[in-house]
């Protein structure tokens, strides 16, 4: 019975996703059954839509920059968290991890207030990168914490004992061993930023990101099948990235000689 329930639950999870390709190849502008026949023209229209291309480009730039920044900050935080003690540690870590338990609208509103009301900045992709970095850092810290915690501290001591400096030890021992964590953190931060809408809606100026562009399309039903085509491609891309992350994680586990205990989240 439990088994049947779980399969039913999976059906619930996948039902809307499975509709994507159905309507992406459906030759009709109304998104409803019955279907009107097969077409690939929605995919064709994707390639000619310059607004879409600009939004996608913006999204990739924002996601890549946020991911790199978040992982750099996350590396420092996770390393400090796992290895060192200092006064006020719990409070500082708490603030860094706070975006994880803060409704996104609060983050969006507070950054909007500071950017516009306090500093009078013009909203741009930069403000969005700053905000996305902020919300990605806790995810990066969580993943990298696990990587650093799994690292036997005597490995680094052994390298120093064998004549390496602190810097070369980090390069030769620490970095290769936490690399799977770094890659996973980069991928997850990238994906979060790529899909983030609420903050992006508040903080983008004239340069919109992909979710903001999709939002604007949702008001014009005639373009809906194009979104379906785009969605299909995005789903396939997401699965590709996730497969890559999972493969990378397994390789990392194998390398560290650990047992496979489950997912990377």
């Amino acid at each position, binding site marked *: 019975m439990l088994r049947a329930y779980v399969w039913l639950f999976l059906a619930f999870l996948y039902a809307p996703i499975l509709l994507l390709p159905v309507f992406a190849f459906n030759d009709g502008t109304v998104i409803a059954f019955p279907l009107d026949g097969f077409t690939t023209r929605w995919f064709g229209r994707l390639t000619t839509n310059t607004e879409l291309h600009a939004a996608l480009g913006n999204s990739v730039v924002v996601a890549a920059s946020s991911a790199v920044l978040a992982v750099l900050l996350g590396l420092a935080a996770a390393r400090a968290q796992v290895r060192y003690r200092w006064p006020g540690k719990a409070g500082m870590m708490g603030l860094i991890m706070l975006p994880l338990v803060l409704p996104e609208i609060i983050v969006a509103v507070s950054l909007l207030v500071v950017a516009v009301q306090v500093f009078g900045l013009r909203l741009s992709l930069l403000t969005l990168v700053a905000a996305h970095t902020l919300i990605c850092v806790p995810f990066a810290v969580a993943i990298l914490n696990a990587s650093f915690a799994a690292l*036997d501290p*005597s*490995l680094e*001591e*052994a*390298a*120093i*004992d*064998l*004549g*390496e*400096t602190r810097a070369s030890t980090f390069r*030769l*021992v620490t970095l*290769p*061993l936490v690399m799977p964590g770094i890659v996973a953190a980069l991928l997850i931060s990238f994906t979060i930023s790529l899909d983030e809408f609420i903050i992006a809606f508040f903080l983008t100026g004239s340069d919109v990101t992909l979710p903001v562009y999709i939002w604007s399309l949702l008001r014009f039903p005639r373009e809906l099948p194009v979104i379906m085509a785009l969605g299909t491609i995005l789903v396939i891309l997401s699965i590709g990235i996730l497969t890559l992350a999972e493969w990378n994680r397994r390789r990392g586990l194998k*390398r*560290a*000689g650990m047992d496979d205990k489950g997912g990377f989240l």
Partner: protein
Amino acid sequence: MTDPLIRLRGVNKYYGDYHALRDVDLDIAAGEFFSLLGPSGCGKTTLLRTIAGFEGVSGGSVAIGGRDMTRVPPNKRPTNMVFQSYAIFPHLSVAQNVGFGLRKRSDLNDDARRAMVADALDMVGLEGYGGRAATALSGGQRQRVALARALVLQPKVLLLDEPLSALDRKMREQMQEELIRLQRHIGITFILVTHDQEEALVMSDRIAVMFDGAIAQLAEAEDLYRRPVDQRVAQFIGVMNFLPAAVAADSVDAPGLGRIPLDAVGVRARANDAPTIGFRPEAVTLLFPGQDAPDRVTDATVAEVVYYGDMTYYDVCLDGTDAKLRVSMRNVYGREVMEIGQRTRLAWSPGAMVLFT
């Protein structure tokens, strides 16, 4: 002792308010197999890491080979360490692990490095394992890789942090003998940290017993066992029976044993609190029917029998006391092991007694 290889003077270490090392003075000679022995939390690992350079000292000095090393970082000290977890780099092969410390040796070319790695692997009995993944090794093999990796750098001192604690009993005994052989063969100083008194007794030339961050006694194995300086050391090393002692001007009284002249007592040591008399299980003997003893004899009853094959441990009650005393007897072919409740006689001599006052 000629000039010691390692000289610690007045070493103190604090972690906040916690006093981890208290005024440690220690000289270790070149070529010595030295052990730091004590219960967990006694400071023995901290002391080893102080010699390696991983722990800075709060006070005092560390000199190695006549040079002051107190402020020298671990990568610049002529010591190498075998870690408790072995710390084998999981992303490198066996040969890359062993050759890890040779990277900085600019006087060597690749061929020379390879030859040194191969020699080191030979030395620990892992010839031909160089190409294996480090993660594919058993516990005993990892231990050997850790040894080879440290020894290939030809350190003046090899530091071993509980290196055998993760191995099973058979493997541990085998590695003990191999380590002794290896140390005699290459002749450098080994400093071993262990909480296992048997391991320390078997392997070391000298042993420092530590309690609460200070060295309680520093002696050769036999001395340590026979002539403990105080009750704590006596209790920690091996087994000892204790009886309350009433000390008079020139004699001591113990329940069941009677009056012993003070000058006949074998060893004098410090008591924890009240005066106590003690003896090792093998320092006395139980008389089987028909046997006789040259010295003193006390009647007793067998209360417990623990059979070990080659040995039997008897707990006996001396007549007129409740205290159970442990006596170890070698089993002799053709002689029955005694039974619980059996009457027997304890034969002992005042010279085997240790008096703690």
